[in-house]
């Protein structure tokens, strides 16, 4: 195992095979990780330092650099793309994270800083995050828990799930469902093409909430104390409510609007050919029936 460490501020550590090194981190620095494949697993501790552990194959280097406002970790292949490396990284909870990869799963726990994650074929599972929290995957589910701030979560071919979070939320996928539970959104945009959308959280006065699907159901949990102007639009779908609502106006086709309380929040619920439904809090999944979970009969597959 060879080490070489430069004396200048641009210190570069190139480590072969077994990696276990710790570099100091100062307040305001951000962690940037670029890992072609494998897993990025970030946890936090109370030290002002970044610890990196990995066991790369002999043809892959893990490069760690500290320069200015960044501690960066990058996997490099000696010939061609790097092989998969599982990076286990421990950082201060205040450290912002910028994590990216291609065939990379990303897992983060405990951070109280902004996070940006991008992967192509990999799952994203983040607990924590404050400020700007942006999570994206193409083929992989995106799960976020315990974040607050401006939340932006995207997948293409899998589900997006956000829980125990607060702030402004944008959630999108194409072929998956979007489920937001115990989320205190001051504004919400949740759209999918082929999947259900569900929100169970407070509807804030003055907030704006848009939930939309083409093929799936759109379910909104509404507390009795909510104040919202609700517009429901569907083309081939249905509307169902677990409690009585008085339709203020009905437009040609299936478009309804009604007011809850003082009508403070603006809510738009749209499904081209799914069901738009209102439920009470805690009953987001009450629309699911046994058939959805019965895989004994796979005649439809």
């Amino acid at each position, binding site marked *: 195992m060879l080490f070489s460490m430069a004396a200048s501020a641009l210190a570069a550590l190139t480590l072969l095979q077994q990696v276990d090194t710790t570099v100091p981190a100062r307040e305001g620095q951000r962690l940037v990780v*670029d890992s072609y494949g494998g897993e990025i697993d970030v946890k936090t501790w109370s030290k002002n330092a970044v610890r990196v552990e990995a066991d790369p194959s002999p043809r892959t280097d893990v490069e760690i650099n500290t320069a200015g406002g960044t501690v960066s970790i990058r996997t490099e292949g000696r010939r061609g793309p790097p092989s998969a490396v599982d990076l286990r990284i421990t950082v201060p909870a205040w450290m912002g994270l910028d994590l990216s990869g291609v065939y990379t799963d990303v897992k983060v726990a405990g951070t109280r800083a902004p996070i940006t994650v*991008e992967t*192509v074929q990999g799952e994203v599972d983040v607990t924590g995050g404050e400020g700007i929290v942006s999570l994206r995957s*193409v083929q992989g589910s995106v799960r976020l828990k315990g974040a607050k701030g401006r939340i932006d979560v995207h997948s293409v071919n899998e589900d997006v799930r956000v829980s125990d979070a607060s702030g402004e939320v944008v959630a999108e996928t194409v072929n998956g469902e979007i489920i937001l539970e115990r989320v205190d959104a001051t504004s919400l945009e949740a759209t999918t093409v082929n999947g259900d959308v569900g929100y169970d959280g407070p509807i804030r006065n003055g907030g704006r909430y848009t939930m939309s699907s*083409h093929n799936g159901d759109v379910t909104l949990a509404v507390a009795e104390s909510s104040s919202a102007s609700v517009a429901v639009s569907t083309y081939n779908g249905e509307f169902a409510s677990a409690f009585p609502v008085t339709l203020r106006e009905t437009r040609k*086709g299936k478009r309804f609007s009604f007011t809850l309380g003082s009508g403070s929040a603006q809510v738009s619920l749209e499904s*081209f050919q799914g069901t738009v439904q209102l439920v009470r809090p805690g009953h987001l999944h009450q629309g699911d029936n046994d058939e959805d979970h019965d895989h004994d009969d796979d005649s439809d597959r």
Partner: protein
Amino acid sequence: MSDQWTDRLSEYLDDEMAPGERRELEAHLLHCVACGSVLADLKRIVIRARGLEDRPPARDPWPGIAARIGVGGTGASPVARRLEAHPRRRWTFSVPQLAAASIALMTVSGGTAWLLHPVNGPGAVTVAAPPSSSAPQLSPSLVVPATSRTPARSYDAAVADLERLLGEGRGRLDTATVRVIERNLATIDSAIVQAQRAVAADSANVYLNSHLAETMRRKLELLRQAAALVSSVS
């Protein structure tokens, strides 16, 4: 040595002679070795000229360009430098790109959907207020300058360009990623077709038009995401 035809050999080579003169010159070339030699040399020169290699300047002018257009140049932040090494895309859409057929939907700050109708010819698009009484009080009309192409053609051109790019570059992506992209494009295409049929049956329906526009936007976004993946591995 030169004769009356020597100075015409370039015209002959470039096929810019009148047919009669061309026949005369060709008859001359049959027995004029000197002209034949000159013509052969001229051909070699043209071939050499077309094969000249391009080379960059000794010094990279980019810092000067970056300064003049007001961007960071090579003094960018570490994150920006990493973006440079591994380019990621930011998705922005102009009004034409969000348009569906001849109608586009724009969501303004109030969150209310406004319908854009192309009026007064292709030169401008006027935002008209929807009939809902709950609409916030905005100015009665907002003229949005249109490009010289109709929104539908701009969208179609953007989609076609990106689809071609993806088609050419799909070999650079792994098969699983290609499958995911294709599958989801098919999902969106199916949704677009359904929405188009619905709009055709009820063209004044605000929701249907906005839904169609949004679904088309999703297609464009996915295509750009896919094209970015192709570019990032090329």
